[in-house]
């Protein structure tokens, strides 16, 4: 090191004073501060969630009342329907789950929890957000071009996605692809920052086993993303050339093979599930330990199962393609690996449940969300077994059973996990407490209506209803009135769920101004972010902290207080 840490810190203080005079634009729009970037990601993600939610509203209304004009949207044509489901999926995964769970929480938490003043490369971090924002704008612009938005499902299987004469959305499909590619680049840049910061810049004394689980999980998720997305980036170039230049990478008439894209896509697509799952699991670990005042059960087991899951997640991708025309012998291998991956995930759930044993549980709003995550994710996990087993997947593939299954995993991840995180760290982010009553109303409304949406869809899936159909009246066996009633029930529950989000938005924005002042450590938690003022100042720590112990020393015997912050010497 050319300069000692002390002189750096002195420089830093100068800079801090200087930053106080920054204009609004340089402070909130072009800031390199990790907390501001985290907020930018969070708000962009929330805005995109509203768009994605509106799309769900439009196509669910069409399914419940086919052919009738949807209030606020109009008639949903077949082309509209395809574009809506495609972009709903794309937005919810790439522009909501990823930016909120990895980028927003990663940006906010990693420097604070590791005891740094910022990310290691603040400017690259800002660039990452700017590219991400650009990608969101590009995606939204694809809805308004001639021919409309891309409608070939979020998996974008060629030849449908590759040729305009098949998809009828020449511009829409290319713009969609460019937007996704830009988003990948944004997250590659972000991921390098997260991984490097957590590896290299931890506070003195913070050993590998002293890192909070949520940081571990975000780092492992970033690594999974960086290692799995490469082939798809190459594949996206190939698909873009197929679309725009007329190459034949995926065209069987010209020595290509449409299945190559499916492999490239799912080699990324399956680890991607774990990319968003792991940060949510990390958030849940922080919340349940804090509110049950318990040490995390078997910290090292959690870590090892996380690594195991990460590695295994690269070996299971073709279970999405059992009936896609792959060689049937390969399906046996992928069934084996898929069933194997259920073991570490089950173990993680068991560990979290075991953490509650002997605890002193406080059912605050964040705790309710975290517990709901475990309860609902279990359902999502076990229904995956039906689909990972090749024999039953023959029937269930591409039915509403699949749809209900992955919403039972993605809803807990992207919605329940996110709300657990937002309600838990809101005091730290904004310096004020959320309203608990409103929080609980929002919680119960959202979780109950979520189950009422998707349990009927499991039933429809078992009854043989397949996906991405805009009007089931063309299929006599699916047009039966008892099934239509289930569709109407699911749509009704969706409306209820969307209505309850108003409660959250009201609570969120009112509490910014009227919430009770939070203080440094309202939850009496151990990790380093709770040792600084709420919201943390630029540079985070007035004095760079030293770490003396792991993050989950709650209710340690022989101490009066039931928590023991990481930075307190004894």
């Amino acid at each position: 090191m050319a300069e000692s840490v002390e002189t750096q810190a002195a420089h830093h203080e100068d800079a801090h004073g200087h930053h106080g005079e920054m204009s609004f634009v340089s402070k909130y729009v072009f800031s390199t501060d990790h907390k501001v970037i985290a907020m930018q990601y969070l708000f962009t993600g929330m805005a995109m969630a509203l768009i994605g939610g509106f799309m769900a509203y439009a196509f669910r209304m069409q399914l419940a009342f086919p052919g009738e004009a949807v209030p606020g949207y109009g008639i949903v044509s077949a082309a509209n329907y395809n574009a809506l489901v495609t972009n709903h999926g794309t937005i919810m995964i790439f522009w909501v789950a990823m930016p909120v769970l990895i980028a927003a929480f990663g940006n906010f938490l990693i420097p604070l929890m590791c005891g740094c003043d910022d990310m290691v490369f603040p400017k690259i971090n800002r660039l990452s957000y700017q590219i991400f924002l650009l990608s969101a704008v590009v995606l939204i612009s694809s809805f308004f071009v001639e021919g409309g938005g891309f409608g070939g499902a979020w998996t974008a299987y060629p030849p449908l996605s590759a040729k305009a004469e098949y998809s009828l959305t020449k511009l829409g499909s290319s713009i969609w692809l460019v937007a996704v590619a830009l988003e990948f680049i944004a997250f590659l840049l972000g991921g390098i920052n997260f991984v490097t910061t957590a590896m290299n810049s931890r506070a003195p004394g913070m050993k590998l086993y002293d890192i909070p689980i949520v940081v571990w999980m975000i780092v492992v998720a970033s690594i999974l993303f960086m290692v799995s997305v490469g082939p798809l980036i190459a594949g996206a170039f190939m698909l873009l050339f197929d679309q725009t230049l007329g190459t034949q990478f995926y065209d069987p008439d010209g020595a290509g093979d449409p299945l190559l894209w499916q492999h490239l896509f799912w080699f990324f697509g399956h680890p991607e599930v774990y990319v968003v799952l792991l940060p949510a699991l990390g958030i849940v670990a922080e919340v349940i330990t804090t509110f049950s005042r318990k040490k995390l059960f078997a910290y090292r087991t959690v870590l090892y199962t996380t690594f195991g899951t990460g590695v295994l997640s690269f070996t299971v991708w073709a279970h999405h393609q059992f009936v896609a025309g792959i060689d049937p012998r390969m399906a046996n291998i992928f069934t084996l690996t898929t069933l194997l991956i259920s073991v570490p995930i089950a173990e993680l759930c068991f560990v979290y449940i075991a953490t509650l044993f002997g605890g002193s549980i406080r059912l605050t709003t964040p705790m309710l969300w975290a517990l709901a995550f475990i309860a609902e994710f279990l359902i999502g996990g076990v229904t995956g077994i039906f689909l990972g087993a090749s024999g039953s997947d023959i029937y269930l593939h591409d039915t509403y059973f699949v749809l209900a299954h992955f919403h039972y995993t993605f809803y807990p991840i992207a919605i329940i996990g996110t709300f657990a995180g937002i309600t838990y760290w809101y005091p730290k982010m904004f310096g004020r407490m959320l309203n608990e009553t409103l929080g609980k109303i929002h919680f119960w409304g959202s979780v109950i209506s979520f189950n009422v949406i998707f349990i009927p869809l499991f039933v429809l899936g078992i009854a043989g209803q397949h996906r991405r159909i805009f009007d089931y009246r063309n299929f006599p066996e699916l047009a039966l009135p008892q099934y239509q009633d289930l569709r109407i029930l699911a749509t009704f529950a969706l409306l209820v769920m969307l209505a309850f989000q108003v409660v959250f938005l009201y609570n969120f924005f009112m509490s910014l101004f009227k919430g009770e002042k939070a203080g440094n450590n309202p939850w009496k938690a151990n990790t380093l972010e709770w040792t600084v003022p709420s919201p943390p100042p630029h540079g985070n720590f007035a004095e760079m902290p030293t770490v003396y112990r792991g993050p989950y020393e709650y209710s340690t015997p022989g101490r009066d207080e039931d928590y023991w912050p990481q930075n307190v010497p004894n």
Partner: protein
Amino acid sequence: MSESEHHHPNYVKIWAILVVLLVVSVLGPELGIRSVTLFTAFGIAIIKAYMVAKNFMHVSVEPRFVTYLLMTAVLFVVLFFAGTAPDVMNAEGTNWEKSSWLAAEASAPAEAENHH
């Protein structure tokens, strides 16, 4: 700084070896023996890659985990290849065949003559 810590080998000598290897890989196919060509093309590419990584990129003096990291990335590529090749690399398999590829291969010799 740590840069001064590691020993700098004779880079020009390593470059000279790389150039010799390059000449061998270009001359190899002239013999017209398939196995020799494969070795001089890809065997030597691997040797060259190893030499560049070890001596120019100094992987050998980095902590061991960097090597593991790079090997893991390569391993995942191999994994992708292994899972994908049975479908993409073959023209036929268990209960399926690529009719368009088989038709194209059947007419390939005629096509090749057109180019000459």
